[in-house]
């Protein structure tokens, strides 16, 4: 059971207080998009062995959404950050670069 820190309310708590919602930074495709784009948006998800950016919600706490960067192999948590963004913050990416050299090529 993971320990998770909510960047919205600042609380660090057991995983049971949170809920994971899969891959982060998915682009919503809507009317006017191609079938392929819709398929990608609705169904295609990464399943990396290693660095993964995820959507989480502090379900039984402040109720707010956030993102988490995590290693699916070792369960190392690189950091949590706002859900109101299109990509992970640079300082977090730099931290992951330091911890997992070459991870960008792997994903």
């Amino acid at each position, binding site marked *: 059971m993971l320990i998770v820190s909510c960047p919205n309310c600042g609380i660090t708590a057991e995983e049971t207080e949170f809920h994971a919602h899969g891959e982060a930074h998915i682009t919503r495709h809507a009317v006017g998009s191609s079938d392929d784009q819709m398929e990608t948006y609705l169904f295609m998800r990464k399943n990396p062995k290693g660095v993964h950016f995820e959507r989480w919600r502090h379900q039984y706490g402040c109720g707010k959404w956030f993102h988490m960067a995590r290693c699916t192999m070792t369960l190392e948590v690189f950091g949590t950050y706002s859900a109101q963004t299109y990509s992970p913050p640079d300082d977090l990416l730099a931290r992951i670069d330091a*911890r997992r050299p070459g991870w960008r090529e792997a994903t």
Partner: protein
Amino acid sequence: MSTRLATGGRLLNKSTSVKFRFNGKYMRGYEGDTLASALLANDQMLVGRSFKYHRPRGIVAAGPEEPNGLVNLGEGSDFEPNARVTTTELFDGLRAESQNHWPSLEFDVGAINKHLSRFLPAGFYYKMFIHPRPLWKHVYEPIIRHSAGLGRAPKTRDEDTYEHFYAFCDVLVIGGGVAGLEAARASALSGARVIVMEQTAHWGGRTPVDGGDINGMPAQDWIDATLAELGAMENVTLRTRTMGAGVYDHGYVLGYERLTDHNPEAQGPRHRLWRVRAGHIITATGAIERPLSFAGNDIPGVMLAASVRDYVVNYGVSAGDRTVVVTNNDDAYLTAIALKEAGLDVPAILDARVLPEDSAAMARAKELGIRVLMGHGVSSVKGGKRVTSVAVCSQAGEGSVLEEIACDAVAMSGGWSPVVHLWSHCGGKLMWDTANACFSPDPDQPPKGADGGQFVSTAGAASGVFQLDDGLNDAFAAADGTLRCLGRKLPRDAKASQGSRNDEAPMAPVWLMPQGASVKLREKAWLDYQNDVKVSDVRLAAQEGFVSVEHAKRYTTLGMATDQGKLSNINGLATLANALGEDIPSVGTTTFRPPYHPISMAVIGGEARDAAFQPIRRTPMHDWHASNGAEFEPVGQWRRPYAYVKSGESTHDAVMREVTNTREKMGLLDASTLGKLIVKGPDAGWFLDMLYTNMMSTLKVGKCRYGLMCNDNGFLIDDGVVARIDEDTWLCHTTTGGAESIHAHMEEWLQTEWWDKKVYVANVTEQYAQIAVVGPNARNALEKLGGMDVSKEALGFMEWADGVIGGFNVRVYRISFSGELSYEIAVDAGQGQAFWDALMAVGADLGAMPYGTECLHILRAEKGFIMIGDETDGTVIPQDLNLHWALSKKKEDYLGKRAHQRSHMADPDRWKLVGLETTDGSTLPDGAYAVGEGNNANGQRNMIGRVTSSYHSPTLGKGIAMGLVHNGPDRMGEVLEFPGTDGKTYSARIVDPVFYDKEGAKQNV
């Protein structure tokens, strides 16, 4: 025979005698005995029968690794199967019965299997029972199910209580042997919060039995002094009878404390589950001795050498009068010496090794006059229910018998394996230790925590360090390393405790004895005692291509018994490696999974049972319902009245009465559970247009509109009536189950996709009591109560208004889920019961009766209204339910719009909603499938539709149903066949789903 010795027994209180029963026979032991030691003291070596061949099984070990000694314990509400005799502490009045035999332990019919053993090799079930197929279901399976399984399932309710305990510490030490105590002592010196868990009732582990000095004093004195030191420290918590059961992500550990198993009369919970978050974990879990694989190594009387020593030293019990020791290492010599010093006979030590010179232990054994045969081993052990003799052979040969030595016990030692389970649970890797022929933790590949750093260390024998001095140094170093991980430091003057050293000759791995043992001998050389897996089975598995250790395990069932292979795993995979011609590390181990040792199911549940199992949500009128005949049904965590049953009435009668009364007079429904979400803000209209398939931004203040919600996959997720409260406020009704999930759904989109929009959502479901006043007399009743104008002109269908009725501040919605004249009236939750009482009082003359959820369902089904969860199941789109009218064509985008254009969704060839009317008036079984022509690829009849809702309608006097049928609306009038699970086939005609008041005249008055 095994017996109690006149002297010895350091753990016993010989002044307190304890009476107990085994298989109905009264026996005596002492306080401090385990059930195993007390049984041995009463010469009860035979404790069970093996799983497959029903061979006699005796006690092998003295700790949790025991594979054979499993008993049914207690009776009635105290009954527990599969209790391990070695971990069961004796208490007065204990009752135990052996398992897996019929008619008796001494004489067992199933033992015939042992004569058939050559026909029952590995994978026997798979090979034998595959043909002919029909025999499996009717012959083989019933017989196998009858003869399978250990112990009995308890029949009565468990009357004991259990609890969870949350704890936090910097350092959690698992194992209270000398290494654990040393690691705890060193860690605690830094001021860190330390918890120490010891699975037995005693501290110090094996060291008091094995001997040695620490800091110049006898080990026991050091243990006592260290315990006193730890006990005096406020930052240290010491728990005995508490097993570290599992290590999980980020330093989470489950501990299993057995509080009253040894004293059932005591008050309080029986077991306690420790849920610990530790900064760092030190596993000082010791090591487990391995058996040797020789023919007849399962005959009662063949035991682990160190366990034989434990029984002598700890409990003053001898396993036999004449014990042959067979070993590949020096440690077993300590057993021979202990036996000899206790006045027992050791006719020989058979040592598989050939050594250039005697070690200290050997020299001591020879001094005591014990005959030591180097390079020798056991060809076979003779005996049935008890060892009678040992046939001696050369280890290097094929088993030619050199001599036969009469004996009644054999103490074997194949070396030691560190207990690496807890290290491995969360990803710690192992390495092969050639010198000790065991897997030990690889310090370079530890389990990693949230910060990517190591969070588990090992200490002492668990590290694969077996000498006392090395073990203490290792424990001190583990504490030092742990504190560094935590950013703490040992005090400068802290020193490691110094243990004495016994120089040992190196052990030599022996995986089969003798090394060239013939097939006949291999077939009697057991690896897994509980599951009856032999050397020959593993070799057969390898021969048949089960080369992965995980496959070989499952094919042979090696290590799959309740002991999870604590004794058998390493021997088994060494045997597999030999058969494959590979080295052991390349074959690898099977996966170690928690718990280390079985824990009670009840402790996992803890306090969560009965009323405390889950929170129950009750409406403000719940107590009134309960005292007025309500039969409740769970709807999520709510309890809603299913029907209000009067005396002399069946539940069905009550439902029928409620429907008729509501249609003809007046019914009251507690609708408080329906979700009520306030959506407010400058962008609220835009937001609701995105969420609902129809247009909500154009709704006029004071009006209501029914809306559908889809997810972005296009599937229906909720429906309900939306009311516009003011210019920037809407109130969205959701289904009862949807209040929280739809609130979360809205928040998800607002927070993660449209975070620039100014919208606020609040779930006010519990702030209001809502009562549906339904039926022809509804308006009459409200007018009698007096207050606001509820006439059609003042408050038309699909309008709402705030006002006062009968002195209550109300919000009244003219909406109908029944097809009748209907007012849904919300009052503050605190006023709910009073308002309900007022409605019941004023309605008394008007025929008012409460109605429940089943009546609600029938009323809506008669009107053809869909119910989320009945007509929808997560694969249904609005088009399937003929709800095209609710799909806005004006809106450019809403959730699900694009998905509805995907080819399969847009395909008109789909299962669609229709009404179904049985040809004979009976009621269709809910969920029944309609069958069409022909068969599918699996030879099953093709299915063309299914029933989604089905009721008996008292209004129409017949069964009515809704269903999804392939191209249903185009097939009006067609009669379909629905085979029921009751063997009958039901015929139903496809009709319009609106059975009652198609024009909607009754609700719009």
